[in-house]
């Protein structure tokens, strides 16, 4: 006599219902996982678009990386020294004062 033969119709129905719930749960869980991983991936690498956005609030970043059109050093690199170190001098015409103001 087989195992299935020992189940009553009621027990078999309950078993089938449990199986359907498990199947639905696994499918839903898989979908949630796919959406979650996609979100993380999109957040990690935003990619780039060939056309500019239109909404003012579409893109916000706290960081800045490149210089503007000025010659000033506004890049994210460290503080830059001069190629030639200053030397000692004496005052005379053309001298200016450095100091707090």
């Amino acid at each position: 006599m087989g195992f299935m033969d020992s189940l009553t119709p009621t027990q078999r129905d309950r078993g089938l219902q449990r199986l359907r719930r498990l199947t639905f749960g696994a499918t839903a869980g898989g979908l949630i996982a796919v959406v979650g991983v996609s979100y993380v991936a999109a957040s990690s690498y935003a990619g780039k678009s060939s056309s500019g956005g239109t909404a003012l609030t579409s893109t916000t970043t706290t960081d800045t990386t490149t210089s503007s059109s000025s010659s000033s050093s506004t890049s994210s690199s460290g503080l830059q020294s001069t190629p030639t170190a200053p030397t000692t001098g004496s005052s005379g015409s053309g001298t200016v004062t450095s100091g707090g103001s």
Partner: protein
Amino acid sequence: MPVALKSWKALGTSVHVLSTHDVGLEAASVAVRDVLEDVDQAYSRFREDSELTQLNANAGRTMRISPLLATAIDAALRAARLTDGAVDPTIGRAIRVAGYDDDFSRIAAEALHPALPRERGREIDPGERGREIPLRAWRVPGWQAIRLDRRLRTVWLPQGVELDLGSTGKALAADLAATAAIAAAGGGGVLVSLGGDIAVAGEPPSGGWRILVAEDSRVKPDGDGDVICVPAGGVAASSTTVRRWSRGGAVLHHIIDPQTSLPTSGPFRTVTVVAATCLDANIASTGAIVRGETAIDWLTSCRLPARLVENDGTIHYIGPWPDPASVAA
């Protein structure tokens, strides 16, 4: 090589333009004036119609800004990042609450009444004269709160946050002015000094530009002190000995420590730095004042020539700062 000089007042401080190309001085000076007018319009904290004032008044909203203001905010954020927040542009409200709420020439004019209550646009009741104003502090929110989109040129500040670009802004202005001046001069070399923050461009005079290193930029150039020769880049000094006022019986100055939201109280009163730009020199000098005890180690790690004056007058030289005992020029 002789140099020609032109001087005037702007941005609440003195402006000096020097040129090795005599005929180019006038054009260079006009170019500098134009840059400074643009700077004043973009990020003066004391003009009601400046972009910065409008931005501060619209905290909580995304605002589109001019390229110049975007560059200045960009520079300020870079300064904050490179100094681990020691130089922070979100000190605006803290420094205003502490009493620096107007062009300093007007604050200085009230020095005879250091306890005079001041509120912009409010007449002073004669009965209030002489009453000591309590010292107040406003917590600095931190530069990370700023949202700057450089591509769209938009910026967003949280409610209640006010920017002050005074420190890096003046140095950036010196760099921009020197670049504009050399282009206008048509050759030679130029030096631009904004209240002691100095940027040079083009071909320097023989031996380099001569700079008297003082604690107060108002010291006459032929005064006593160390003189250095700089062929390129910028020089900036930050000092707690100038721009001082009184609150709560305490004498305050304009360099705010973001950690305490109050003027710094570290061991150094003046720091002078030479760097590739005036902006970088200013970031280093202001950062060193705020860092206090760790300033020497930090400046050494930056590998920038620097001169630090302790509160008792002791002087320290960092990196390839020239030996003041040897006069070469």
